[in-house]
């Protein structure tokens, strides 16, 4: 089980738990504002963009080429940016804090 905290642009905090699926799916299931996931998770919309807390960056599988290319042009992109639909939930994510980018 991984417990993940989402912080939205208007500073609302949502804590959610799961042991499978993607981080985007978890966010959508909990109506996290700013995670619209327009494309349903196929890496074409960037409306699932989050900033990962620095201490968790190295616990994640690195972003693939296509995700990196998407992020290159995303609004508010930083070194901590990820597309949450491409983040498969793992135990290592337990305790992770994500700031919704938009």
């Amino acid at each position, binding site marked *: 089980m991984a417990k993940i905290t989402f912080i939205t642009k208007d500073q609302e905090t949502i804590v959610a738990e799961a042991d499978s699926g993607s981080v985007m799916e978890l966010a959508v299931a909990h109506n996290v504002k700013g995670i619209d996931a327009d494309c*349903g998770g*196929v*890496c*074409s919309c960037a409306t699932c963009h989050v900033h990962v807390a620095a201490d968790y960056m190295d616990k994640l599988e690195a972003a693939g080429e296509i995700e990196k*290319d998407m992020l290159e*042009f995303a609004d508010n992109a930083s070194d901590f940016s990820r597309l949450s639909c491409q983040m498969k939930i793992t135990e290592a994510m337990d305790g992770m804090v994500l700031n919704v980018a938009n």
Partner: protein
Amino acid sequence: MKKSALPDPFEKARLEKGFGEVEDQEDPVIMVLRHKDVRKCAHNWKTFQSGAAPGRIVVPSEVNIRDTRQIPFELDPPLHREYRDLMEDWFRRPLQAPYQAQLSAQISAAIEEVLTKDSVEVVGDFSLPLQSRALTLLLNIPFEEAEKWIAWGTHVFRSEESALDGDKANILYDYIDQEIDKAIEHPGEDLYSVLLASEAQGRKLTKEEVKGTMILTFAGGRDTVINAVTNSIAYFAEHPESLNRLRSEPEIIARAVEELIRYFAPLTHMGRVATEDAQVCEHAVKADSRISLCWASANRDAAVFENPNEVVLDRKINPHLGFGFSHHKCLGATHARQILKTLLHVLIEKVESIDIQDSVENIENWGEFNRKVGFDQLQVKFNALK
């Protein structure tokens, strides 16, 4: 080759030089063909603007047939954002349950009706009514209004004789003027009234701005949706195994919709005007000349998509540009996606198979490229699931 197949006419030019050239009313267009370049140019509004003379970023150019600026389409940041922000929430209404229920009822009724017939012309007698009725939900106006739009036919801006038919466009413009006047007199809960009550640049939207927004809502969502619906019917007619797969795995429907949009790319390309001397794939683009972002070519770029010319229904990574890219990406995409998802749900629930009886292809000519984009006519029989 299957009738539903849409070959990629851009491959050779995309690989060899990365661009193509189209003549258009003495205002030529450099078509940008590679996925990476299309995204880069779409993002770079400072060099490749949308806010040129109204109609100029459309290919073929509409500068000679309209003066009304389409909003937010023909604006650049930061003004673009101000107008687009007014519309975002409204265009997300297709995610609400009552909207989805109504759309589902509309599409179920449309399928029930065609199931009673021996032969149906899909473009005019299925896709056009479906698109028009669904648009009443997006505009939040009475269902009956769709009958008027259906009567306009499929080519409200185009006729068989010429690609740019000013008279036909006037039908739409005059209609929208009338509807705006009605909404001014009797404000309601519809999109016209919402826009008329909105503010940008510190003042109310002008009538001309509301008109420019409504024209775009009608024009942008008409041929594209009709194309996507018609091509979907042709595809499932020739791929019964895909229909059966969705029946047993309905959870992949959202991905299937993205893949169909990638493959169909209902809008082939859209232009921009260079604000300064620039380059695309080492080819000079002069200030005040045009480029176009070719979504259809980008969607078949093998540098990004494995088996680009195949429909892979559950394609997991699919950064297609069918709905455009960056700040101008399609505002109607939520509505369009909901239409297609609903259509697939209704098809698997009610339709066993579809037989194509006859078809007339719609081929676009862009300079050296001839692109089959879909059908002018598609005659089929829908067979009910027993």
